[in-house]
């Protein structure tokens, strides 16, 4: 296997490891094709640290005399230091780490090699499929159908093979609509609101261009969506200025003249580089050791991360209001329909749909709205905040989603069936994982590489009896009501559990949370007797 080509030195003795929340320890360092393993060799302890090389964002080397120090900054925001005796060994190790931590070839990544004894590759991969989902939603069958027009991914490379569309729109029509939408992402159903039969559709921007092209089929499709209603809302995640400019590069918006029953609402959301920059600044603020309150608040403000959280929750709230309070269907899109659109559709469903707030429901929601819907995880999560690499398509949109969900959890501690621990776990898995769930950019790529047959499924693993307890919220009280988050800036807080994870304070509070969990579970048990 080529991995060994990159490993000149596989083992080094007498290495000192410094990691957060632990005293320095001495032991043996091993480098394998996918991992860095440190085994403590102190008296009476057998601590091991196993780090996926994929989790490494950046490394720095410092030589002093005949030994060197490698500082490893991880995508999960941990910072480790290894003091390695011997300059040549140190250089070899760092070179191996550098190469192996940014392998491009997806099929060489660890999920293809991860073979735990308690999981079988024959186990079901994924929680559900569009087909199963459609079959289970009986209320949909009257006016909506499952189309397999995309079964070979030729109509839309980033969509799953089956999507839900209005009954009266046939496959040929869909093909034409796909040509009119960026990346072929024609409007599809993502949520059906049982209480009033209204729906949320999502898509990418229409390719109207500077010449104001129109597509009768696209208009027909959207008309079919609001058949029984007087109007629908289009939530465009770009400002009015941005949409005008989009026309100059071939994109555009749904103009009133051709879509006269649809009211367009603009809510500018940041994406791409802007979000990545924001994350970098926030992480930098969190590692500031100056102990100065003013500086902390300044840096926090400058990062603008909390502003993005506010905008996301606020726009999702708007979407949910259109559907639940005003009783109208809505279409959501930005440019490509793979980032902000998915973000606010997910959050709106959490606001409105109690089932999405259960543990299973939430994982199924993520599977539908992110994994199957074609959020380009491989590109977005190639690097995180510490990386020095030249960024291409990286953007912490999924992390932003998890932060928003955490804000919901904080504001409604009884309303979500899952715990913060789940959010933290997902925040790690999306950047570096043993599982194949977040590999690739869409269903087509996953099929091509045989991800479903050759890797294990994260969501299934999280629902196993041993794990699911840890990820459940012991205070959960299911409610049919919608949960409307406050988006006043004063109500939103820094997600300390993630951004300050490796500090003494957070560590201590995690232990306290665990204690409280045990107490609540114990009380529930006692109360039942």
């Amino acid at each position, binding site marked *: 296997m080529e991995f060994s080509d990159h490993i000149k030195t596989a083992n080094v003795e007498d290495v000192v490891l410094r990691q957060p929340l632990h005293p320095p320890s001495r032991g043996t360092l091993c480098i394998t094709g996918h991992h860095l393993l440190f085994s403590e060799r102190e008296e009476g302890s057998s601590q091991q640290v196993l780090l996926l090389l994929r989790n490494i964002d950046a490394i720095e080397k410092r030589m002093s005399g005949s030994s060197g120090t490698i500082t490893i900054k991880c995508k999960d925001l941990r910072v480790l230091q290894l003091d390695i005796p011997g300059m040549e060994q140190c250089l070899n190790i760092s070179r191996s780490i550098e190469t192996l931590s940014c392998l491009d070839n997806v099929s060489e990544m660890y999920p293809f090699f991860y073979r735990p004894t308690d999981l079988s590759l024959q186990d079901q991969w994924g929680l559900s499929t569009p087909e199963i989902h459609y079959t289970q939603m009986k209320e949909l069958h009257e006016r909506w159908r499952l189309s397999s027009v995309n079964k070979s991914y030729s109509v839309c490379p980033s969509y799953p093979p089956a999507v839900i569309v209005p009954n009266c729109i046939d496959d040929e029509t869909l093909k034409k609509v796909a040509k009119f939408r960026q990346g072929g992402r024609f409007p599809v159903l993502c949520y059906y609101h049982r209480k009033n039969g209204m729906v949320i559709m999502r898509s990418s921007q229409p390719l109207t261009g500077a010449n104001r092209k129109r597509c009768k089929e696209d208009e027909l499709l959207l008309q079919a969506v609001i058949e029984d209603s007087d109007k629908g809302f289009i939530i465009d995640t770009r400002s009015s200025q941005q949409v005008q400019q989009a026309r100059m590069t071939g994109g555009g918006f749904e103009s009133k003249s051709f879509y006269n029953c649809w009211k367009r609402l603009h809510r500018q959301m940041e994406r791409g580089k802007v979000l990545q920059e924001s994350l970098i600044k926030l992480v930098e603020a969190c590692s500031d050791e100056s102990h100065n*309150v*003013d500086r902390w*608040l*300044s840096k*926090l*403000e400058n990062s*603008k991360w*909390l*502003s993005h959280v*506010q905008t996301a929750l606020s726009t999702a709230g708007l979407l949910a209001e259109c559907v639940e309070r005003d009783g109208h269907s809505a279409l959501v899109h930005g440019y490509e329909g793979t980032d902000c659109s998915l973000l606010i559709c997910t959050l709106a469903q959490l606001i409105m749909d109690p089932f999405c707030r259960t543990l299973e429901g939430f994982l199924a929601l993520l599977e539908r709205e992110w994994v199957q819907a074609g959020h380009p995880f491989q590109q977005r999560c190639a690097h995180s905040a510490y990386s020095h690499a030249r960024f291409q398509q990286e953007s912490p949109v999924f992390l932003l989603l998890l932060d928003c969900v955490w804000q919901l959890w904080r504001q409604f501690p009884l309303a979500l069936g899952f715990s913060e621990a789940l959010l933290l776990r997902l925040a790690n898995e999306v950047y570096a994982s043993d599982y194949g769930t977040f590999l690739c950019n869409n269903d087509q790529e996953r099929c091509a590489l045989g991800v479903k047959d050759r890797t294990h499924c994260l969501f299934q693993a999280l629902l196993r009896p041993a794990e699911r307890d840890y990820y459940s919220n012991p205070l959960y009280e299911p409610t049919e009501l919608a949960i409307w988050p406050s*988006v*006043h*800036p*004063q109500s*939103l807080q820094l997600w300390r559990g993630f951004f300050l994870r490796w500090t003494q*304070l957070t560590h*201590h*509070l995690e232990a*306290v949370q665990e*204690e*409280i969990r045990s107490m609540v579970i114990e009380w529930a048990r006692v109360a039942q007797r």
Partner: protein
Amino acid sequence: MEFAELIKTPRVDGVVLHRPFMPTVEGTLCLTGHHLILSSRQDNTEELWLLHSNIDFIEKRFVGSVGSIIVKCKDLRVIQLDIPGMEECLNIASSIEALSTLDSVSLMYPFFYRPMFEVIEDGWNSYLPQDAFKELESMTDEWRLSKVNKDFTVCPSYPPLVAVPKNIDDDTLKKVAAFRHGGRFPVLSYYHKKNGMVMMRAGQPLTGTNGRRCKEDEKLINATLRPGKRGYIIDTRTINVAQQAKARGGGFESEGNYPQWRRIHKAIDRYNVLQESLIKLVEACNDQSHSMDRWLSKLEASSWQTHIKEILTTACLAAQCIDREGASVLVHGTEGTDSTLQVSSLAQIILDPGCRTIKGFQGLVEREWLQAGHPFQQRCAQSAYSNSKPRQEAPAFLLFLDCVWQVLRQFPCSFEFNESFLVLLFEHAYASQFGTFLGSCAADRSV
């Protein structure tokens, strides 16, 4: 009764009340000598009983013939009353203004309040210095309870009984009192069971520009040192401010005269700086602009969190000196009635698990704030909404409660009480039916 003279219109019907968290309700507004009451005929609405002493500021607004009075309370609530009839509205407003700015303590509501609940324990006598001393006596015989201040003549702001080192007699204490700001000679604040180290607190030494010294003062604090061990003096002023204090008769303990004491300066802001900070913070919290940037900017500009950090850091330092270094500590600022008490009480929260129980915390507040003579009457005369010129107001006690809350948040399983308790204490410090927070010291309250 003078109250009736101040009430121009005692009763108005058809008043609409807007208050946080509850639906708008219409009812009858009544003004009594102590309360503003709104009562509606509807069954399931709660009556509003608002103490005039809780009112910080009122604004009037007129739309047509309906006048609105916006009442901003010291507990930070904002309520609105829509009163039909301009004359009624003006009368109500001026009555409220008069009733909420009464100066005389004995006109305050606690003197008129008759509780409707059963009084289980005599709170006035639950936390007497004698009882606290009994506990100290059981652990060490190095201290005695002195009655030198029983008529409040030696130190007007101290309680009648104070704990001092055993070998220091009353005459010595009188001399030390003459050397300390406001007569606040060093007294025992806390005895650390684990190692017998103590924390004392005082006012600043009145060394003045001539470098006055007081051998009795030195003898007193040296009495708390173990042979061969140094003590720490934590001065809550910067070294510059401490130097400048000399020009006005104050000063600090010089190394020459107090060689066994190491002085550490850890500045904590006080008085109007704190009041300004509170005003800005409350304004930031009420900002409705929905802008994250603006919120964070304003939060930063208020500097409130900086003050929290200063106080907590200093308290941690004091606690570390006592617990980790095994040294005794003397804390003082200028007067010894604000930052000194913040540090001494917080350090006890850190060090003493007993202070984290409900009774223990009440005892702490009683000892380190009420009996210790924190001037509540002056500090809590106005809160964040007031428009009048601030004189001696400062949210020192509120800052202390905020610091306790910070610790509570970091150690959620280590306290017997919760956040609601802290909020309750805050509310009562500013306006209460109980007399606990009236006055500024034991002498005031004994009258």
